Structure formats: C-alpha cells, structure tokens
C-alpha cells in the first residue's frame, strides 16, 4: 500500500515538472511598451484606409510636471489589426494595450463608419472596457501628439480631463468603451462622444459633443448646447458643479440637478415631458438681488431655460438621433410587438415639454 502511494506521489511530481515546459508566458515589464493612447484616423489612401497612431509611454524615474516622455508610431494599414502587427516590426519591445485608457477616433473616420473600429476593440482581450472614447478634431493623431507642459506622466493629462480626479468640466462628456458599444447596438439609445481639440499644441479643449446614429456623426453640439445636453442627460455622477445658466445680465451656477423624462400620449399627440429640478447660486448679476423678491427672477430664469432646452431637444430630434434614450424608455413602458416601428414613426412628430423648477439658494457672498 505504502509503496503504491509513494509511486503515485512521485508520478504526480514528475507530471508537475511537465508544467514549466511551456516556458515563461510573461514578458518582464521592462520588455514591454505600454500604449497609453491610441488614435484611429482615415488616411485618405484607398488601399490602406486606416491610419493608426499609438502613443508609447517611456518610463521615467521622475514624476514632476513636464517630465512625461513618450514616443509615437504611425502606420497606414488595410485593417487595424494588421496595422498593429506591422507596428510590432517598428519597435523593440512588446506592445501592451492593457494600460491604454484613451481611444481617439478621428473626425473624418467618425463621419464615415466606426463599426469596424469598435469590433476590433471589443474583440481584443487586453483592451479595457472602461477605456475612454472620444473624437479627435481635426484628426486623432494631431490631438495625441500634443504635449501638455503640465503633464506628469505619459497619457495622464487627457485621462485627467475625462475622469473625476482632475478637472470637473460641465462641458465634457465621458463615455467608456462598454457604454459606447452598448449604445451602438441598443434600439432607441444613440451614442454620443466628446470632441477633443488641440490648444496650440500645449493643451486640450474639450467642449463639444458629437451626437451619432449607429454608425456616424449626425450632429455636433456647440459648447453651450453641450453643457445643456449634459444637464438634460443628468450625467452628473462626477461633478458637484453642474455648469451655469446665463440669462440676460445674470449667471447662475447649478449646484444640484435632477432631470427625468416621461413619454405621454395626450389627444393622439405624443409629448415627451422633461422635468428638471435645480438648485442654483447667483454667480454674476448686474443688479443687487439680495433685497428683492427672488420668485419672479426664478420664474423668468425657468422660462428662459425651458425655451433653450426645448430648442436643443428639437434640434436633436431634427437630426433624428436619440442620445437621451427616449426610444428605450418608450420600449420599456410599452410591451408588445412592433413598438420599435411605432416609435420610429412617432419620434419625429413628438413634441417636447420641459418643466423646470429652479431655486435660487443664495446670491453668493455679496448682496
């Protein structure tokens, strides 16, 4: 009995020795190039339509502003996957996308068709689903090549603009790969991406939002519209400051905001009702407000907000996109077949009704 046990044990040991025969599957960290930003553009060449730009981090012992070093590689290729394989021939270390948190799509590509790009991203196992997506203007490569002087380590500046750690801009619209690909397939819930522009090669400007249908850009919102879009979409998980609202000679900062919508059918007329509640503080005012009755001012602000929100909603509706998810809500509220067809007929004709409850909580530090 003992002997057999002994034999089995030694057999198991011998079998275990087989395991390391595969060799080391991992490459050391200093034998890897970490991609920190990827830009995808159209090259204009018909045979090799895609231009891939990758930003490679060069590790540096110093972490202080302006010390971030990186290298760029650009290639034109028939497909993205092929281009990356080819890029491996250009560099001495293994390319690793595991730390790539920014994917920029060139405007020209986004105006054509982004489906193949997304397909590649979702198939790659090492691309994080939480990576940020944005559109580079005029193209992704030029935005990636900007070297902000304040940047501490490679790829950090752009990432800080999108995350909640750095600036909290109410014009920015952060969308992750998983959220974006969900919107690309979901009926009645269209994607939107922030547009990143270069600021004299020293920094970034992110204050526009591109609204897309399931393939390409349909409408680009101006900075003011982008801010209002963010407020309507109620995407305020990251910022305590929800932007501002300007009316005549007065600016209020929105500190708290709730926005929800409902789709109602009244007398055969479909109405999309958007209810918003916001608490604001006066930031700029030509006249002294402290002693005045704030009610009429509030209602005046409410009216003007409602009018502007309505204008934006109609503009989005005219472009026939649905980034706020009205269609999805309609499908959720109405069970049964053919709802999607009904919604497609219904949406272009629906009217909007925005109800705003705006409360001025204070006039700032002065009267």
């Amino acid at each position, binding site marked *: 009995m003992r002997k057999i046990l002994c034999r089995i044990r030694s057999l198991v040991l011998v079998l275990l020795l087989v395991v390391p025969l595969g060799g080391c599957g991992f490459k050391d960290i200093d034998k890897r190039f970490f991609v920190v930003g990827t830009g995808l553009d159209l090259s204009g060449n018909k045979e090799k339509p895609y231009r891939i730009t990758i930003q490679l981090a060069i590790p540096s012992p110093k972490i202080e502003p302006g010390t971030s070093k990186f290298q760029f590689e650009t290639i034109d290729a028939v497909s993205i996957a092929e281009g990356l394989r080819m890029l491996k021939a250009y560099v001495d270390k293994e390319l690793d996308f595991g730390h790539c948190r920014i994917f920029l799509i060139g405007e020209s590509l986004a105006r054509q068709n982004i489906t193949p790009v997304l397909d590649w991203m*979702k198939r790659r196992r090492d691309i994080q689903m939480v990576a940020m997506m944005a559109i580079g203007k005029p193209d992704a490569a030029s935005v990636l090549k900007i070297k902000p002087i304040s940047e501490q380590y490679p790829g950090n500046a752009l990432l800080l603009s999108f995350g909640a750690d750095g600036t909290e801009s109410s014009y920015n619209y952060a969308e992750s790969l998983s959220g974006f690909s969900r919107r690309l397939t979901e009926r009645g*819930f269209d994607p939107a991406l922030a547009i990143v522009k270069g600021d004299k090669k020293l920094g970034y400007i992110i204050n526009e939002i591109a609204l897309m249908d399931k393939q390409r850009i349909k409408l680009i919102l101006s900075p003011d519209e982008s801010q209002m879009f963010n407020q309507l979409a109620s995407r305020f998980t990251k910022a305590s400051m929800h932007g501002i609202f300007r009316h005549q000679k007065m600016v209020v900062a929105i500190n708290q905001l709730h926005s929800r919508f409902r789709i109602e059918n009244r007398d055969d007329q479909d109405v999309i009702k958007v209810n918003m509640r916001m608490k604001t503080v006066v930031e700029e005012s030509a006249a002294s407000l402290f002693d005045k009755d704030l009610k009429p001012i509030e209602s005046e602000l409410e009216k003007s907000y409602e009018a502007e929100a309505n204008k934006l909603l109609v503009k989005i509706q005219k472009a026939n996109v649905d980034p706020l998810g009205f269609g999805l809500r309609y499908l959720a509220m109405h069970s049964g077949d053919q709802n999607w067809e009904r919604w497609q007929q219904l949406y272009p004709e629906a009217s909007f009704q925005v109800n705003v409850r705006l409360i001025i909580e204070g006039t700032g530090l002065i009267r």
Partner: protein
Amino acid sequence: MNRYFFYLFLFVALMNIMLFVPHILVDNRFEGSVAAILISPIFGSIMIYMFTNAMARFPGQGLPEIFAQFFPRWFVSVYMFFYAMMYWFSSTVVAMAFAVLINRFFNPHANVLIIMVVMVLASGYAATRSTLTVMLLLEIIIIINVPIILFIMFKMVTSPQLNLDSIHVVANYIGHWPNLASIAAATYIFTGYINLSLFNRLFPPNFRFKLLWTYPILGLLILLVTFFVPIGFHGTQGISQYIYLWTITADSLMMQYGFIERVMFLFLIVFLNLSLVYTATAWHQAMEFIKGCMPSMKPETDSPKAPITNYVIIGLFTAASVLYMVFTNEKMNLAITTVWLILRMFTEVMTVVTVFILSRRRLVPR
C-alpha cells in the same frame, strides 16, 4: 450544521456563471427566460422541501446506502455510475471554461491544456480527501470569497451604468412561454440541495433543517442579478455579442482607488477559487458514488488516510477531463452543457421523487 447545508446551496447558486447559465438565459431573453426565472423558485422550493424532508429520515446515510437498502445491486450500481458521471461532467465543464478564461485574460501565450492539467491536478488532490475535509474546505472558500462577490455585486447594482430601461424592456417579455433549455438553466440555481445526497452522511440524527424558506428567495435574487445585471450594462441587443458575459461586465466597472483598477481581475481570481473548489467537491462526490457501486466499500466520512481507490478513481477523472478538453472546443462545450443542464433537471426530479417515496413507504429493507 445548518450552515453547511446553506454553503452547499449558495456555492452551486454562485457557480451558475461558470456553467453558462447566464449565457443560455440571455440567448432566450425574448423567448421566455423571464418566465423561466419566475417559475424556477417554485420548482426549486418544492424540490428542496421534498429532498430535505426525505433525507432527514435517513440520518447519516448517503444516496448509495439508501438505494442499497431498497433496490437490487445491479440497479444501484448502474444508477450510481450514472450519477457519478453527471457530477464529473459538471465540474469538467467548469474547469474547462475556467482554463479557457485564464488563457484568454491572464496569459494568452500559455498552452490551455497545461493550464487545465494544473487545475485538475490541484482540485483532484483536494477531491481525494475525506468527506469531512471537503466540507470544511468548502466553508473556508465560501467565507473568504463571498464577501468579495457581494462587494462586486453591490458595485454593479449601484453603478450609474446600469440602465434600468434596458432591464425593463427585457422584463416586458414575461408573457412568453419558456423553452426547456431556459427552464433547465434557471432551475440550476436551486440545485445545490442535491449535494445532500452524499453530504447527508455527515448530518447527525435528529438534525433539523432550518430557515428553508430563505433558500428560494436567495436563489431568486442571485438569478435576477445573474440575468439582469449584464443586460443593464450592455443593453438588450448588445448583450448577445459577448461570449464571457460576466467577465466583460466586471471589466466595465472600475475601482478607482482599489489596488487593482480593473474589477475583472478581482472577479476572475474569486471565481478561480470557486471553480477549483467546485471541481473538488463534485469530483469527491462522484468518487464516493463510484465507490458506492462496489459492494465491498464501506462509507466513511473521516478516514485518517485516503484509501488507494480514491487516487485511482480521481486519476481516471483527471485523465478523462483532459481528454474531454482535447476533443471539444468552446462551442461544443456550450452545446453539451445545455444538454447536460436539461438532463440534470430530469435526473434530479427522478432522484428526489424516488427518495421521497422511499422515505414515506417505509418498505421493509432487503
């Protein structure tokens, strides 16, 4: 002792992710999955009540001993062998699914067969231990891992990315009559009680099962999370494009101030632990059932030394698992698992009803 029964139940309920249950349910999401999810707790609670009630009348006995009292030898042997194969198969599917996952996400350069061999050797060794050891091992793994799973689930359910409208759209398809595959997948969540057919050996006489009503509720909650959370994250249409539903869903989350930013790695490690122990417990039970086929074997729950038969049987299991991996691929694995889930449901009903009748009729033992 009640907590041990709870572990057996919880453990299997959590393992559904590795057995393609969310995958099968999502595939049928417009054809009756929602109804299947609502039917399965009823089915599950009836089964749990019948089986615990019946097994309580055979204290300290496992299924092989109970059957041996009432049925002819050849029937017990055939039945136990079939039972053992069912157990062996479920754990092989889990081990293989996990080996493929490790290969995809951790180390794509490694040979998937080697990963599989290492995994089955580790869980095979654990399976050769005594029944009591396996039970205690299960407790340790549950206590270490379940808080992490709860944390991940909490993060997912409270995430702003979870779109309630998408969930609502799918929930609207409640009126569709479910097909067999989705019923089989949904009822798998409640199948943990069947492990009592071996672990009943450990339960003392006059043992009473408490709080049985919580089991269907807990199972239903797990089932709802399993099914609806990926839909909330990836949308009603987008969900069908992913193969590794839950891994991708975990990857859509981020722990900004955690040690590891990607929740996916935490998720994979936790489920690696669970898969290894699942394989170990299932193989242990399969091994004991095969031993139940042999008339000479006496059931033992806490032997100081593992008998040589254990090593031989587990060695065969290990070899068979590796062979299974060689001859199948991911796609076949999914198809075979679907068939297994359906077969499992019928086997289970058969076993539970048989044992229940035996416990009531009080036949004179042979």
